[in-house]
């Protein structure tokens, strides 16, 4: 059995070159996608990263209490409004002082897409030398599951409940990663937890790219508690998100957009939504709206990957 | 202490005039303070600035309501009531105008100086920005300053060819201003 699977096995373990700096038991919900991600990052990038995070699901573990901590990393708990500006201040001072550094600005979608988008965009425009990682669980989960800019059409949250006058969220989600790629930064990518080798490669590329400036990775990280997903299904949700093109995996190196995983025959989005309770109430017509949005985003992405293959980002003056 | 009020329009260098004079006073070991009347500054809009010049440190941080000297860079304001408001008895006025007619009447005005600063500036720097001509003319009219510190002060605001042209402007202002006792 093991022999047979070996050929298919991911080489992800080869990328885990560093210690897991987190305590064995931490205060995340069962099946939390965030936990896998936050343990993974320092094992790939090294324990000498300086990580910043905001009030969020990550905070109880990253922040610690009083003199106690869940991990051994250098950590700065920042405000949601200015997370990217905090990381900017760190990275700029280290550069001035000649201190070798990898600053990882680690935030949820509420910070990245909503309240902290202005300073995220500003840091990208200034090509600040650090890595920004958005773990996207499609809402404000720590405060009890409220809608954010990346919450998809039809999803129920406590501020977009399903009712006679509401489909759940009645608006479409924004595409944060594409917006970031449009900032002409050295590196932008999407990733998820069902393809950890892809994620590891992207983390290392981001670390390399931040020598030239801003690196952004958007990680799709389901929230079993908030979405109504069985804890053991977290990775399956990620897998289906990729296979339906609900969350395509791509990267933009120096502006060149390229798919890192092409799905030959994408499954309908309903194969993804059916294992997630927050979509339970959607009828066929509603699902079609979601499907159309997924198709639209993928079409744009495909078009850009063709276009940008021909359009090289000009070398910046700082290079 | 001499309290001076400057009247002109945005683009004429009204505030700079008062700054250069404050600078020139400092170069003689005296003290100067200059500031603009607050408001949105736009090219063409009326501008008022204030200057206090003294041999002692200037401590007041208020606008000037009773000036000893008026400096009018904008000819259209030569007979404006607002310009003369609060002028102290025995007051002086320096006017930038091509019209040398002495049809200016104010009970408190005792000394008038007129110079066509726009014309001189046009000739020397190619632009009708009268401020540095006015600086030289002010030194002559007020008798409070020599022309040298005025020319030295220009170094803080201009360089190269512009500096030498503006020094000529200030010197011509000093020499060509016409003084009248009223």
């Amino acid at each position, binding site marked *: 059995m093991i022999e047979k699977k070996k050929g298919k096995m991911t080489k992800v373990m080869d990328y885990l070159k560093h210690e897991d700096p987190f305590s064995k038991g931490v205060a995340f919900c069962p099946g939390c996608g965030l936990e896998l991600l936050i343990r993974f990052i320092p094992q790939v990038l090294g324990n000498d990263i300086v990580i910043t995070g905001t009030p969020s699901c990550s905070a109880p573990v990253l922040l610690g209490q*009083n003199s106690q901590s869940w991990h051994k990393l250098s950590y700065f708990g*920042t405000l949601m409004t200015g997370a990217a500006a905090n990381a*900017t201040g*760190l990275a*700029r001072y280290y550069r*001035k002082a000649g*201190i070798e550094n990898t600053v990882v600005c680690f935030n949820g979608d509420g910070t990245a897409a909503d309240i902290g988008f202005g300073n995220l965009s500003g840091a990208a425009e200034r090509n600040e030398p650090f890595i920004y990682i958005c773990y996207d669980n499609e809402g404000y989960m720590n405060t009890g599951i409220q809608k954010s800019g990346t919450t998809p059409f039809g999803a129920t949250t406590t501020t977009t409940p399903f009712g006679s006058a509401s489909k759940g969220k009645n608006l479409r989600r924004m595409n944060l990663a594409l917006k970031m790629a449009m900032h002409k930064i050295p590196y932008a990518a999407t990733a998820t937890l069902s393809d950890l080798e892809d994620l590891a490669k992207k983390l290392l590329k981001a670390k390399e790219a931040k020598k030239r400036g801003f690196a952004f990775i958007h990680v799709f990280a389901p929230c079993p508690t908030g979405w109504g997903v069985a804890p053991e299904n977290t990775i399956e949700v990620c897998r289906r998100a990729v296979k339906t093109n609900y969350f395509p995996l791509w990267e933009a190196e120096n502006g060149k957009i390229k798919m890192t995983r092409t799905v030959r025959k994408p499954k309908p989005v309903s194969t993804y939504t059916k294992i997630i309770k927050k979509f339970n109430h959607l009828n066929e017509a509603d699902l079609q709206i979601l499907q159309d949005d997924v198709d639209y985003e993928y079409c744009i992405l495909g078009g850009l990957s063709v276009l940008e293959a021909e359009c090289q980002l000009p070398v910046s003056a700082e290079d | 202490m001499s309290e001076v009020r400057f009247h002109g329009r945005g683009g004429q260098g009204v505030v700079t005039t008062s700054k250069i004079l*404050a600078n020139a006073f400092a170069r003689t070991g005296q003290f100067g303070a200059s500031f603009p009347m607050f408001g949105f500054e736009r090219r063409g809009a009326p501008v008022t600035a204030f200057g206090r010049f003294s041999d002692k440190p200037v401590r007041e941080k208020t606008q000037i309501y009773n000036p000893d000297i008026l400096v009018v860079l904008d000819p259209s304001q030569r007979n404006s009531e607002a310009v003369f408001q609060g002028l102290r008895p025995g007051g002086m006025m320096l006017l930038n105008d091509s019209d040398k007619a002495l049809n200016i009447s104010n009970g408190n005005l005792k000394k008038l100086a007129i110079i066509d600063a726009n014309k001189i500036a046009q000739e020397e720097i190619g632009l009708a920005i009268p401020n540095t001509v006015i600086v030289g003319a002010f030194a002559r009219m007020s008798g409070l300053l020599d022309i040298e510190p005025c020319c030295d002060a220009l*170094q803080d605001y201009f360089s190269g060819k512009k500096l030498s042209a503006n020094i000529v402007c200030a010197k011509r202002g000093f020499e060509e201003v016409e003084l009248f006792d009223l």
Partner: protein
Amino acid sequence: MNTKVKEKSQIKVITGNAAAAIAAKLVRPDVVAAYPITPQTEIIEQISKFHANGEMDCELITVEGENSAMNAVMAASLAGGRVFTATSSWGLAFMYDAVLATAGARAPVVMVNVNRETPGIIAVSSGQQDMISTRDAGWIFLIAENCQEVMDLVLQAYRLAEDYDIQVPVMVHYDGFYLSYLSEVVDVPFQEDVDRFLSVLKDQPERIKLVPGGKLGCGSHGILKGYLELRHKHLSAMERAKAKIDQIDKEFQEIFNRSYSGQIEEYRMDDADVVLVGSGSMCGTIKTVIDEKRQAGVKVGLVKIRMYRPFPGEAMVGALKGKKAIGVVDRSLCFGFKGGPMYTELKAFETQLDGSKMISFIDGIANTDITKANVGQMIDSTCDLAAGKDVREVTWVSYPEAQEDGGL
């Protein structure tokens, strides 16, 4: 550029904003965040020019808003850097969350706030309401009277903020328009003297810094006792700052030959019967009026508040105790109270003043000029109070209509 070279300095005629910018250059900051707002913009323009000309070797972050300005310098400061930024009014409001967090983190940030009003967007006018609205953020507040003091207070602010025993952010305030755009004579210190003045900090123990691999967490106060411990230590550091600014001012005098006597400045107070208490640019005008009144035999003096947070209560009591009457001039409002904020706070010390009577003056808001006539009126009213006459508790000096307005 040098107007005149003296032994210790260069004389220049510059604005308050230029003085702040040059001071920021002289302290050799590692990181500066820049965002424009009237009437502060000239500061960051000048710094950008210094940076572009290679005169200032700092990381200049041209942020996309004030909130990021404060967040960036807070983080750079926690990482170990010397930092500077400047703002005013709405900019201060927009960074308010980060202002609180910077204090909470005890990041020794120095910021200039050029005072401006904040009731609506076109209030591009004088007033200290921005400062007052931030007074309990946990920062040290210093207030300058003239362009020279702007320069000198920025230099002193670094000694205070970064002192190992203090480690509290410092905001240097000065009046927008009245000082920001005022050009006057300023002694600009030489670089080597500023270096010497600041070198004391290098001899102190190194503060804790957030560095890669350092296994340090920051940004949180925890809860319960851990939280209380940090807050109490912060408050204690604020208390220590009072004596510290007095000491720093003495050392400043030894190097630069100028002194401001620390937390408060007393002007003609020795034999004064009546006193005005004020802050900022109004104090220059008040001093000239006091000199005139003194010639007419009125025994009047001034107490100028230079350090507003922590409130210099003990120093104020020492200066004011036993005076017949005190008039406190506020350039801002204290909603919920009739009198101005500084008046209201000084009232807390009333029982220690041995019977001094107090009244409040509100003036200088929204570009209403605190004229010599206005100051004269304030002194006359305070003399009336001393003479036992019936005087209104609160007077809006430039708005006599307030007397007809109910409630006040």
